[in-house]
């Protein structure tokens, strides 16, 4: 069974690495909200990407955050990377 990256993983890692903007509720409906609207600029995303790489043992492309501007898109992209690493049973 392959490792899955979930929206809860993303929220936890965002909070650990970059905190949460005042007035933004990460437990709200954020799946399709642009990261910039959530208060995360490029450096916050760089830090988030670095933490995901460490925890999940993967290497992300430099443009993963420019190609995937929302939590839903990012979660999908990371799961794609994970599934490519782990052979399916």
């Amino acid at each position, binding site marked *: 069974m392959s490792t899955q990256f979930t929206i809860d993983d993303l929220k936890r890692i965002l*909070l650990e690495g*970059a*905190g949460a*903007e*005042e007035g933004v509720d990460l437990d709200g409906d954020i799946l399709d909200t642009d990261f910039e609207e959530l*208060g995360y600029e490029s*450096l*916050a995303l760089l*830090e988030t990407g670095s933490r995901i790489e*460490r925890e999940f043992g993967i290497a992300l492309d430099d443009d993963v955050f420019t190609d995937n501007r929302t939590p839903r898109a990012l979660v999908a992209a990371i799961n794609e990377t994970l599934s490519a690493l782990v052979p399916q049973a």
Partner: protein
Amino acid sequence: MSAKAVVTGIGVATPNGLGVDDFWAATRVGKNAIERVTRFDPEQYPSRLAGEIRGFEAEKHLPSRLIPQTDRMTRLALVAADCAFEDAGVQPGDIPEFDMGVVTASTSGGFEFGQNELKKLWSQGSQYVSAYQSFAWFYAVNSGQISIRNGMRGPSGVVVSDHAGGLDAIAQARRQIRKGSKLIFSGGFDASICPWGWVAQIAGGRLSTSDDPDRAYLPFDAAAGGYVPGEGGALLILEDERTARERGADNVYGEIAGYGATFDPKPGSGREPGLRRAIEVALADAGVEAGDVDVVFADAAGTPRLDREEADAITAVFGPSGVPVTAPKTMIGRLYSGAAPVDVVTALLAIREGLVPPTTNVELSPAYDIDLVVGQPRPTSIRTALVLARGYGGYNSAVVVRATD
């Protein structure tokens, strides 16, 4: 005629109190805040005393977004900025964003943040180093974070000239007010009481090695043997006096009336140090005579050579025991870029109350012809105060602060 730059808001965080009221209540009576270092175990180091800020919980004052990206000195500065806005009775949105700027001073940058990231680098690897290390350590980071948090997009910058920088930044802020900015934040914060910051300070060769908080930092005393470092600083809001009056500012503490800065000649040249000229330039800039100055806040380096240079400069300008001199920083230690802004705040509060806070613990050496206010505060009418600051490497700065009324 140039705009008159007045101080209309203060945010202060020192070992002797957070906020103007606590700070002044402790300072006016000479409360000592120097103690053994608690932020790390200092046992193995030759210097073990510091002025630490106790009970500051950044998480209670700042959004979680700012915590992972800020050093302690930046957290202190951001909270002080909030306090200064409140004190001034101004909301950041009240003034157009390009009419507000931030000019701070820095001596060390974010040493504790840098130490933590360096530790991750050598113990875990480069992929563990925070992306925020890119700016969190940086000298200009306090100006940047204050301007971002409060939407201040006018003239901004940072000055790096050790202790003198605290005055150089205030002078630069005054220039921006004169050029037409409506509101400029100025001041400085340093907070490097962590092992990496500590060894850097020890390497400067001027730290006291005493373990007795009452005998460790003794400027102008025959027993002077270095200084005790502290953490913290102050931020001041400068406005043009007319603008401030028009908006009905609650607090107009006083005017930044004069400034002078010089550089020392090459060591060993035998030429006179630059401090006297800095004082004379500042007095001339303010349009006052030596006899108009009611009190001098000394740099008070606490080493015999530097104390001698400062006492000689003061005596040369004001005459033997010609003006009350004080060094309230004996209570809290030397705060680097934060020291002189704190002294400017103290001078403004001294003017307001008519009280010179004391130099603590010191017994004046008969070798110095200065009227040092020791032991007890001295009630006296104050209209004009002079603040001195000298930076490691030859910087001398002087600021004249004057009552407005």
